[in-house]
């Protein structure tokens, strides 16, 4: 699942570690989400979207057939 977490984080001048603290997850988890290796739970996806003041659909992009 593609997402814009990295772009949004960088535009906000945040490090992965800072975003991880804000979300209550590990830095490795933020990295895994940004690189598409891990799809976050619905709860974490909503929290990320709210943190960046976006909707979930604006942050996460599900490629449908």
């Amino acid at each position: 699942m593609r997402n814009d977490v990295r772009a949004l984080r960088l535009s906000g001048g945040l490090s992965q570690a800072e975003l991880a603290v804000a979300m209550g997850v590990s830095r490795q988890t933020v990295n895994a989400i940004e690189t598409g290796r891990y799809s976050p739970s619905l709860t974490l996806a909503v929290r990320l979207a709210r943190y960046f003041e976006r909707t979930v659909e604006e942050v996460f992009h599900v490629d449908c057939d």
Partner: protein
Amino acid sequence: MSTATDGVRGRWGVPLTGVVVGAAMCVASGLNGRWGLGLAMLAIMVAYGALLLVFGGREPVAMLAREDGDERQRAIQARASHISFNLVAVFVVGGFVVDLARGGDGMPWAVIAAVGGAAYIATVAVLSRRG
């Protein structure tokens, strides 16, 4: 909310538990006069605990040393447990078959398989009720 106490317990909990288990194995083995074997098992558990403490900054090692973690780490733990359970199940069934082929009665493989199977069935039943 995490506290300093949680952090200490999280970092030292598993290593100290390992040392305690190693000490118990050492005493149990020593009571049968096999202190060499007991001390070797204790040394293995102490070395494992030290490994967790020294390399605890690396994520895989930190995950071995703690039972909590974020959602991704818990998912990894669950998948690792699932894969480990399947490998042990294959090993136990294989041991049971080989023991039967050698003329044995399949013990203790059958008991281990029964406990594992019963635990799996009970876990599925409980978790499915919880949704």
